[in-house]
């Protein structure tokens, strides 16, 4: 409910008329929560900048089908046509990758998070630079609160992708490790 409330407060609801410039529609429909350039400043709301279009369309598809659980996004995606899914996902992929937050990272948590990412081979799918690709999410410089929330969701089984791949990947990661992992990925230092 909290997320729906946040969405209702921040979403500018425009008639989704036959407007085919999806970058403009992103600005009207999505930017209030996810940021004009895809860099979210809203708690628990992901940055979309730099997400691969295949990942974006997959998530919109899962929201539309009700297979991914988020009241606000299910409500938004339900009214989308196939063309909308393609258009929005392509517009999202054109947004620049988000930058690291201005606040300084905690070096100890950074080191622990890096070690956890290495040990659990996160880069095997998400890439050594955590930029994602195809259907796999970009993690670099994602919001820390959203990352931690998402990883907890995968660990508890509340969130399921196409398969249980992420649920299995998170099975051996402790609650403390999730917090450090989220901190590390959110602040990911350049290599």
């Amino acid at each position, binding site marked *: 409910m909290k997320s729906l409330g946040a969405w209702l407060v921040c979403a500018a609801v425009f008639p989704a008329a036959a407007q085919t410039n999806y970058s403009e529609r992103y600005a009207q429909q999505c930017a209030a929560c996810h940021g004009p350039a895809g860099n979210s400043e809203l708690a628990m709301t992901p940055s979309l900048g730099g997400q691969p279009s*295949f990942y974006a*369309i997959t998530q919109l598809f899962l929201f539309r089908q009700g297979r991914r659980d988020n009241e606000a996004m299910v409500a938004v995606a339900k009214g989308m046509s196939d063309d909308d*899914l393609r258009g929005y996902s392509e517009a999202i992929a054109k947004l620049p990758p988000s930058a690291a937050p201005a606040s300084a990272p905690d070096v100890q948590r950074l080191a622990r998070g890096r070690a*956890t990412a290495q040990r659990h*081979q996160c880069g*095997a799918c998400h890439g050594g630079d955590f930029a994602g690709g195809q259907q796999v999410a970009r993690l670099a410089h994602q919001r820390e609160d959203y990352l931690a929330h998402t990883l907890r969701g995968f660990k508890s089984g509340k969130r399921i992708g*196409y*398969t249980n*791949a992420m649920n299995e990947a998170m099975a051996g990661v402790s609650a403390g490790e999730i917090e450090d992992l989220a901190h590390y990925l959110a602040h990911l230092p350049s290599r």
Partner: protein
Amino acid sequence: MKASQKLFAVTALALAAALSWAQQQPPAEEPFWAKGRPKTDTAMKMAPVPAFPIPTAADKLPVAKMKLPPGFKAEVWASNILDARGLRQGDQGTVFVSSLFVAGKVYAVVDKGGTREIKTIAEKLMLPNGIEYHKGSLYVATPKEITRYDNIEANLDKPPTPVMIYDKLPGDVPHGWKFIKVGPDGKLYVPVGAPCNICEVSDTHAKIMRMNLDGTNVETVARGVRNTVGFDFDPKTGHLWFTDNQRDWLSEDLPNDELNHLTQPGNQHFGYPYCHQGNFADPEFGWGKSCDDYAKPAVLLGPHTAPLGMRFYTGKMFPAKYQGAIFIARHGSWNRTKKTGSDIVVAWPDAKGGVSRVEPFLTGLIENNEYLGRPADVLVMKDGSLLVSDDHNGAIYRISYGR
């Protein structure tokens, strides 16, 4: 010691402690498909890609790009079938279509003479790739269980509650999705793939089983099978022939995927994980093993080409040379720099139990090293035409010959 130095020392100590703690933990497993992947930048960028979640509109399907032998024609038979994979035809003409995890559905396509109506008859299933139609019933296999929908064609709008016939499959996602078929012996053939790219397997995996249609009397007919997602029975001999997808990450060009021929049910081992393509011992599991001890493939189908569904041609429409030949859908590679496969090839069995030759049949679906479509299964229709499913476009094509 100054305060800043002290802070630095404490931080360094904490860092060292954190790192040494991490180093003591055993590394977690890679995803199953990534095991054995070289750590080069090129290989590290390769990964399986699921079907696109939006079917391609009928007028954008790549039929004009398809190349076929002279006299053959390709057309769109049905579109807007998300994740269309396995194909079966009912006695009354209904075409049943399975899917993987993108859709999780089983569909029925009813030909209304020129237009086709698509009905979803089961949904929210886990990787329901395995389907079979037999004597009025539809069988559906997930990695975990096999169920049966009786009198299905009379109940497409209100399918009956499925009857559980077997629920003791391992249920692994890796290579757990099925291709199932009833043999001439009246038994249901069910594979269980290796739960990995390459690993030692126990008796529970890497095999093809058969069972009575009620799920009883399960027996293994073939061992050493890594991941078969297509098989059929030779209409002349009744023998099982099956495609098998071979291990990944050895190299761009080795090993080849296989077409195999089972001549002694229960007594043949097809090599996995010890020997690939009949002549190449695995660099790890092949030590101490000889390829001479394993059944050899009938023919090699190219590296990483991913041969899936296959059917003996028994129709009357195609030229005589195709009688008894095997049409094979190759889904195409996901971990090869230059894409290969993504076509239909035809293999001709010879008199000695092997294959005399393999010819391309439907090509043209790779352009600028990108897939325009990816065939997953074939079906010989009652009129002799050939249906081809394409999971990446969510479509079914019809290949016909002559007028």
